[in-house]
């Protein structure tokens, strides 16, 4: 495979406490060293990338991606979704098992691994179902799924509704040290809902999903996690109350982690005023107070990581009336731009915290041997242009779907190179 030299970039690797301008040398798909800034002669390596003015980070990891395959290939496939990931700067994704059929058997996990290998794009780690057939009735064969390579468990798309089953899942997963990624929603409170319940839903006459629907379930799962010692990862936290619950639980030493999505720290329920179904997702866009609480949670670490909940839906499905259109928003190709624009360019967080939230901690939560540029580590590397200003155009997306409310937005920051196992898999045309 040869050698790759990334010269003169700002290397940010929180796993080693590194934030300095330096060179990264890669050989045969592994990181060899970080050092010798600017002194390594050009031509020494087989390939050299001039990273002057760019940020060099351990490959970004999106731990919440719906790849839709098998079963809903009209929305996305493993190949199209992972190409979108590469274009967005992600070297790894964790795919969520609410496919048709759901990923609840060794064979299903193996299918995803094979499809991903054939696509030869980014790494795909499989999150498998907590319950058999995602029905919430009995546990899936968690031990065998772990053997097949499942990195975590989730019935996302829906909560694990039976509290006793959730308790058993926490207890059982403890033996494998695997987290449960929880979609938190009390369905009776959100029934028929299209958007956040608040002043905007009141004015628009749309059925609301109250913040309490999310917070009540977060409270239940924190209690179950604490009583069992099981690892809870709260998915897509969207409310100020949710952030407060997690902060308090962490202060007590609970084994809890949490993620937030770029749309939840960027948009509010005001977005629904145009009745555009691209603003419809679950959990819904909340208020400005919630947006600020999510950002504060990312700043102080209550929210460990940023994940996209990339949820493609074919355009004809999103063209339906608001109550018939499905929940979901694309995330992979806008995440870096939104995170840099909303969090870094505004001075709320620095680059080390951003890289921690998008690489170091997702790797740690899922137990992946990724998220670091230590010598000997797999050379998954993302090189970000932190200053480039670009316009979001859904027609340019690699995803099969276009359900993004950010079409036409101008964002700052974009992946310039995405390197997987030492090979450059995506290179931004910077004309």
């Amino acid at each position: 495979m040869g050698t790759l030299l990334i010269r003169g970039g700002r290397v940010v690797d929180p796993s080693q406490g590194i934030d300095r301008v330096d060179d990264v040398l890669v050989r045969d798909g592994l990181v060899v060293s970080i050092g010798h800034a600017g002194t390594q002669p050009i031509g020494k390596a087989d390939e050299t990338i001039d990273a002057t003015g760019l940020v060099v980070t351990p490959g970004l990891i999106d731990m919440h991606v719906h790849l839709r395959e098998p079963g809903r290939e009209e929305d996305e496939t493993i190949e199209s979704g992972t190409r979108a990931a590469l274009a967005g700067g992600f070297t790894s994704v964790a795919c969520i098992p609410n496919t048709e059929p759901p990923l609840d058997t060794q064979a299903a996990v193996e299918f995803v691994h094979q499809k991903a290998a054939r696509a030869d794009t980014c790494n795909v780690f499989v999150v498998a179902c907590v319950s058999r057939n995602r029905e919430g009735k009995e546990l899936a064969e968690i031990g065998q799924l772990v053997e097949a390579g499942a990195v975590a468990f989730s019935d996302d798309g829906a909560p694990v509704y039976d509290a006793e089953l959730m308790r058993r899942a926490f207890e059982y997963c403890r033996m494998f040290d695997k987290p449960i990624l929880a979609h938190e929603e009390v369905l009776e409170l959100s029934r028929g809902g299209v958007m956040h319940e608040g002043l905007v839903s009141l004015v628009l006459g749309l059925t609301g999903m109250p913040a309490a629907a999310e917070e009540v379930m977060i409270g239940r799962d924190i209690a179950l996690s604490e009583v069992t010692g099981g690892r809870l990862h709260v998915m897509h936290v969207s409310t100020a109350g949710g952030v407060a619950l997690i902060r308090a639980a962490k202060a007590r030493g609970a084994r809890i982690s949490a993620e937030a999505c770029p749309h939840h720290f960027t948009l509010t329920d005001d977005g629904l005023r145009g009745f555009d179904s691209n603003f419809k997702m679950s959990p819904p866009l909340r208020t400005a107070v919630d947006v600020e609480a999510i950002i504060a949670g990312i700043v102080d670490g209550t929210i460990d990581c940023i994940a996209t909940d990339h949820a493609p839906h074919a355009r004809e499905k999103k063209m339906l009336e608001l109550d018939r259109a499905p929940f979901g928003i694309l995330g992979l190709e806008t995440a870096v731009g939104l995170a840099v624009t909303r969090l870094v360019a505004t001075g709320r967080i620095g680059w080390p915290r951003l890289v921690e939230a998008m690489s170091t901690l997702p790797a740690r939560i899922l137990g992946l041997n990724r998220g670091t540029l230590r010598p000997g580590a797999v050379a998954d590397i993302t090189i970000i242009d932190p200053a480039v200003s670009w316009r979001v155009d859904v027609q340019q997306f690699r995803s099969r779907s276009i359900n993004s409310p950010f079409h036409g937005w101008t964002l700052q920051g974009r992946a310039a190179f995405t390197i997987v196992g030492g090979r450059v898999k995506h290179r931004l045309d910077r004309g």
Partner: protein
Amino acid sequence: MSSPTFDQQAVPSQWTHRHLLDLERLTPDEIRLLLDTATLFKEATGGCRRKLAVLTGTTVVTLFFENSTRTKTSFALAARRLGADVVDFSASSSSLSKGESFIDTARNLEAMGIDAVVVRHGTPGTPHLLAQHLSVGVINAGDGPHEHPTQGLLDIFSIRERLGDLQGVTVGLVGDIAHSRTARSNLWGLVKLGARVIVCGPPTLVSDRWRELGVEVSHDLDAIVPRCDVLNLLRIQFERQNTRPFPSVREYAHLYAMTRERLKRAKKDLLILAPGPINRGVEVSAEVADCPQSLILDQVANGLAVRMGVLWLTCGPRAADAVPAAIPTRGGF
């Protein structure tokens, strides 16, 4: 009585919208313009009885995805009074039951060369969605619990006909505010014209959040009746409720039905409106519905005037050309 011919130049030209989607996004002047136009048509048609030939050659489609008798009939009659052709597109008998999306259906109708679509749908925002996809005028005839702009206009028209000016008038909207499109359209129109609005009903149907819009919230009908100049009694929309928001119809009527006893404590010249269909004995007792202060039948007649005005403004010869819908456009940072 005015002359039997209609002077087209008498209609002011400030109307700049292609569609009528809601009252929330209209200015007070635009709402006055709609009401004034309705007045002109009411007079020019001798109280909505005679025909005018001002929309001859225009085709209006009524596209109703929810059942309706009076609104659809009122629109059809208004269009015919102006000389337009009216086609009724019955959603249940269409290809919609075969899985075609409603946007495809509307595009098909548009391709047939129509001028305006009058649409009713159970989902808020559906007329707005149509307006984005079609180049013909779209008139919202009720979108779920969101808005019913012509109903709001005709209620306000009926009040204005009796009281002259809305400024300082206190209007109580009573009942199922949560699920009522009529409440929302009334609320916006009334507030914009300077009326004082009180929304009244149990907390499960009347959110305290309405206060954030400058509207008074009350859960006690007896307390507000003596202060109101107008009461608009809204129907309980049983069909839109997940779980019943009050213990029983009997208890609801006890607390919120407008009865003769409550009427005794009201101002003598209190006006009573009720957008049909009414549940007699639930929102309003029979003797109050039929009392002299009741504008219920005025409302039906005035509905024709308002709808003639709206059709004229949105698809008449002076209708705005291809002005995009009043949807906020969003940019980046």
